């Protein structure tokens, strides 16, 4: 599984670049790198459906980012400003938060089942039943369309909501004078 670790570290590195780089276009591209590494990780962990969706969504996300950056500005001018006391405070709080979060999550993650050995309490029933009852070859499709179909309705609704939301927000005039 060495490639998994490489990809994880690559995505972390690309993430840092995306956050810290001054050119916003470059940072959107770095974000794309993170997204694609995530997609490849999905393939590595035997989730091809996820990888496909992730790639589609990633392309869309990058396109949206690029569109927004082109519409606004592509240099992060805020990085040029001098550090104020407030910024040091923010960084300090982040460091404190990060340390505690890491410590607690390490000790919490130890109590999880080991990586690569999921419990699969419900899932084993799905796998046992899935093919016979639903006649679906793809079990993920069976889950999203049948067992947990309501979530998929919710997913579609979220997408619909955000489309309407974006349309609402992009109106030029909201209030009648």
């Amino acid at each position, binding site marked *: 599984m060495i490639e998994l670790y490489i990809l994880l570290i690559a995505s972390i590195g690309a993430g840092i670049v995306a956050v810290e780089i001054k050119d916003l276009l470059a940072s959107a591209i770095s974000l794309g790198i993170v997204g694609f590494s995530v997609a490849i990780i999905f393939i590595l962990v035997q989730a091809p459906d996820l990888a496909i969706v992730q790639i589609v969504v990633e392309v869309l996300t990058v396109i949206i980012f690029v569109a927004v950056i082109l519409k606004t500005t592509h240099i992060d001018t805020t990085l040029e400003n001098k550090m104020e006391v*407030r910024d040091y*405070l*923010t960084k300090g*709080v982040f460091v*404190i*938060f990060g340390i*505690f*979060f890491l410590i*607690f999550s390490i000790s919490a993650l130890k109590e999880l089942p080991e990586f690569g050995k999921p419990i699969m309490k419900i899932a084993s029933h799905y796998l046992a039943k899935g093919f016979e009852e639903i006649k679906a070859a793809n079990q993920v499709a069976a889950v999203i369309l049948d067992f947990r179909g309501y979530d998929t309705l919710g997913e579609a609704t979220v997408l619909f909501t955000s489309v309407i939301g974006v349309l609402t927000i992009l109106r030029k005039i909201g209030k009648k004078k």
Partner: protein
Amino acid sequence: MSSFELLIILPIIFGFLGYLVSFLRNEFYFLGAILNFHYAVRIFFISRKTEVIRKTFGIFNFGVDKLSGFVLLFISLFTLLILIYSIRYLKYYEKKKEYFYYLLLIGSISCGIVLANNIITLMIFWGILLSLIFGFFQYTTKNNSEDAFIKSIFILGLSDFLLILGFALLFVSYGNIPLNLKISLNNNLNILAYILITIGCFAKAGAIPLHSWIPEISKVMPASTMAFIPASLDKLLGIYLLLKVSYYLFDLNTNFTLKNYLMIVGSITILAAVLMALIQKEAMKLLSFHAVSQVGYMVLGIGTGVPIGVAGSLFHMLNNTLYKTSLFLTTGQVEFWTKETRIEKLGGLAVNMPITFTSFLISALAISGIPPLNGFFSKRMIYQGVIYLYKEGNYLFLLYLLAAMFGSVLTLASFLKLTHSIFLGDRPKEYEKIKEVNFSLWFPSSLLAFLCILFGILAIPLPLKGLIYPSLPFKIEEIGFWQPTLAFILIILGIGIGFVIYMWGAIQKIEKREIFIGGESLKEEERHFSGDQFYSPIKEAPLLSKGFEFGEEGSFDFYNYLKTILGTISLLFKKVIDFILEIIYQTIVYFSETFGSLLRKFQSGILSDYLVVIFIGIVIILLILIL
């Protein structure tokens, strides 16, 4: 439907009809009040005949005993009288439809309070009354008067909350109990509940240190509101509840300290408020301070725990509502024509308004405790109760007695001043053509003044044996009636001092000299002397040393010493009491000013600041929950 529901519901329904139908408005309102009175009389007579009647509707439980029957009768009577009065008095008032509706609602809900027979019912009706009073105040304020309004809401709301908290304590430990269990005041929780409830009663009735809303609103409310809320209704309710809680729900005689607590509050109220009243220059405010001072007697009487004292205090409550309402109403009558309540601007109206003057004078004499008017009897009974404490070995009684008697003297003094400056003395020229007010205006106050005389002359057969004694849960022993007691002597002494002071004032008035201002002689009509300067030196004498200066001017006579001492005490009270009062209110204002503005800085508009606080929050949550 029995009288119980009809008593409460009919005024609400007729009031609503009146609110809707404009051309029959006064008739509907009047009908509502009359019906309320009718059923109150019926319930009163029922309560005379039988022991206790109860009616239950769900969790609501109403009951009437002899005490509540009698209070109910008077609440309803006052609602009716003040409605009659205000229909004329507020004829040109803009928002009178709301005003009258609120008036009727308050009347009927107060009946509900008196009829309430368990904790929940009482709490709910008490709260409804609070909200109605807020509404009422909103519709009756004269002009933009935010401070007085907010302050009165604050004090009333806070104390009513404490009252409800007190009942809530009882609810937690005893459940929804009826109000006549005579729980003994031995454990701490009960004592706490009792104290919290008394705080509510004090604020309603207006005892120090929760009195200040009454003088405060007196500046901005019309006379009819003052006569209705602080003078009659809240006295009846506050003292009724105090009595009910002290001798029916709890048994005050089981706790010696609490008795003294009540008596101390009572004594301080008597003295401090009357001292404040002495230096007022505005008739309404002066009256409102007296309204506070008289509460002291009632609280003192209830605190004695002696049957005669408690009976006296109940009688005093009745008397006080009679004459104090009458005083507010007559002052309102004067204001109706003159549009003026500042004492210095008034004078000599006795000739113009004889009926008003007579009612005012009778009520003023009654409040000062002059025999044979009713105020004398009730105060005397309270004195007797206080003196009786001697037998129980409570030697503080002397202090209470002195406070009460001194208060009585000063009441007389201040009413001489008021009577003189409004109705006697020089009449300003512009008031020469003033006529007597309309029947519907003078009728209520005259009726009340008549009741003052009636209850004074026929005190024993009528009010005492008819109303007061049966209402109380103890057997009242008569302590000799015309015995020359210490009390009587002191009363005479009081009249004497009052008379001396009056004469002093009268001499000042007669003495007329030419006045030169800037070398010119003042015209006769500009030389208007008024009684308001009687006690003004008291106000100007903040400290004893300062008082001696006055003493020098007046060659160290007795009166000036008195003035100086009074000045010091009154200043002390003004400073200390006002300080205590304001301190809660001001602290919160201060906190919201400084602390609040500091906190508002946190809402800086910058997202990263918000996120910083939020992430500090999660770090704290993690630390608390995991470690």
